[in-house]
């Protein structure tokens, strides 16, 4: 694939939109409420699997299955959050790491339910390939036909997906912008800065934290659903624990506390990530694609450490409102 292929840019943009939703979930949990969640990918995986299993095995219509997917993600949030929000932040970090591993482990090993290592193509056993995605493709087809009266031949299902993802991301960004400025958002920030003070003015700290965690879980689940629909088939390996850290990198790009920096960070990250995956011009052609995956992950870790060391406020952040000093 080369840089002048429009399909490449559409793909980059769709993934960027999905990353916005993913990072927004972490933003609510981590940047607003100060909850370190290192297993965000678990919410994605649980939602995607629930949706796919219900569509394929129970023949449920896609929208209903999608809602159940989100419910499952929120339920996992409850399982994690109820024991740990009362405790110090590091307990949630530990529990969420464990949950991320556990969900992937179960997805790989409960093959009678999840299709095992094969993933969604093996849902009904290795002999019967069934797609969970038909309803979604149908929707995109209808949408692109409707759009073709406006856009003409430029309307393709891919671009319909782009429109859907970014409308969703934009709407969510707007909603959370409002939420952040609302009394609810201010309480969360107060809790992040000083829990004792927030308790002293009569705020139920654990309840607010749990609300933030569950909202983030629902957003994570939504990102998981979008990713599943975008890639068409998925396996446990599509929900590697490292996905969580992509989201952190996107957040830290904007200094962890700039909502409007999320789409910028997501776009840059998606371009770098997808670019190093599919493009093959000179400096990239030196490294084969297998090693590139590891180099990319290495760079994610390196950038995280580097930002934390020399520029904890991120590229666009404000040093005065810095939640990482605590």
């Amino acid at each position, binding site marked *: 694939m080369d840089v002048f292929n429009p399909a490449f840019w559409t793909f980059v943009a769709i993934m960027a939109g999905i990353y916005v939703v993913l990072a927004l979930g972490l933003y609510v949990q981590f940047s607003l409420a100060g909850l370190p969640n290192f297993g965000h990918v678990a919410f994605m995986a649980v939602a995607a699997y629930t949706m796919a299993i219900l569509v394929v095995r129970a023949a449920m219509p896609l929208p209903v299955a999608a809602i159940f997917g989100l419910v499952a993600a929120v339920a996992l949030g409850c399982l994690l959050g109820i024991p740990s929000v009362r405790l110090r932040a*590091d307990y949630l970090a*530990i529990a969420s*790491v464990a949950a991320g*591993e556990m969900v992937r482990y179960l997805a790989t090993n409960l093959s009678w339910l999840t299709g095992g290592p094969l993933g969604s193509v093996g849902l009904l056993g290795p002999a019967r390939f069934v797609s969970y995605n038909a309803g979604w493709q149908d929707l995109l087809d209808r949408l692109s036909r409707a759009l073709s009266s406006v856009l003409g031949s430029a309307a393709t299902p891919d671009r319909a997906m782009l429109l859907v993802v970014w409308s969703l991301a934009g709407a969510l960004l707007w909603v959370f912008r409002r939420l952040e400025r609302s009394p609810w958002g201010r309480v969360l920030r107060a809790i992040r800065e000083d829990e004792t003070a927030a308790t002293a003015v009569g705020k139920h700290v654990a309840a607010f934290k749990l609300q933030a965690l569950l909202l983030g879980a629902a957003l994570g689940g939504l990102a998981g659903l979008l990713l599943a629909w975008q890639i068409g088939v998925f396996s446990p390996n599509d929900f590697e*624990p490292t996905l969580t850290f992509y989201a952190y990198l996107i957040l830290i790009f904007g200094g962890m506390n700039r909502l409007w920096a999320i789409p910028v960070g997501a776009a840059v990250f998606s371009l770098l990530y997808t670019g190093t995956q599919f493009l093959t011009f000179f400096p990239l052609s030196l490294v084969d694609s297998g090693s590139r995956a590891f180099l990319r992950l290495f760079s994610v870790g*390196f950038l995280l*450490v580097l930002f934390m060391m020399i520029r904890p406020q991120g590229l666009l952040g404000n040093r005065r409102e810095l939640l990482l*000093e605590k």
Partner: protein
Amino acid sequence: MTQFAELVVTGLVTGAVLALAGVGASLVFGIQRIPNFAHGEYLTFAAYLAFLLNVPFGQNLVAATAGAIAGTALLAIGIHFVVLRPLRGRGLVAMSLVTAGLALMLRDVVFLVAGTQVRQYAIDQTKVFALGFLRISPGEAVAIPIATVVLPAVALLLARTPMGKSMRAVADNRDLAAISGIDVERVGVHVWLLAGALAGLGGVMLAVVEGTFDPNLGFQVLFLIFTTVVLGGIGNAYGALVAGLVLGVAMDLATWNGFFGGLDAQYKPVLAFCVLIVLLLVRPQGLFGRATVL
């Protein structure tokens, strides 16, 4: 009955690995206030260092293990001085992110250098030792004597030596230890040396017990290490020693036929996860901790 005894032995071996890694992680947590999400990668690093000495360089496994222990202790110290010490005082959340970033770096360096293929040490994995009515794999036959010597030695080190005492003192109450004249800075360096060395030994043992391993070796047990740390009470070294053994034995005994027909072996990690969640719910201070504000 034989199955029961064999499961206890396997469980104790797994438990010894968790105890070794857990003691280090718990002390680091208590003394440096760092939840070290790179601890699993220290185990991986050690396993590969031992592999390098054992297979390409043809050293025997004892020498290779010694090399791995020294190398991992150096790695831990190096990371302490280059990355973690300059960031001191940044708080738990920031330190979690930094160590998680370090974990990504270490794991992917191992992937890049060693490749994705599965490795094993130059020992005969097919041999079976008979010990009375027990049948023991070569990995376990190596791991059991090591564990029976090292775990009491670690306990003794913590209980009797000045270094061990000051470590526990700093983990318990940093300010009180500092005004009693303990050099907190030096204890901080020592604890990384100890944690690195124990992780080194644990990593090689884990690789030997698993038989074959790939660069995800340590990351896969990271959450078990953390469960050990929480089970023993964060910062409590003896707690982690006991908790590792308890967790290891409990996971293997759950598969025993006499236990409601036995849990399928693939659910062992799930059991550990349930232990963690229940623990956070009812006893977050760990088995032996005091109920203070967490």
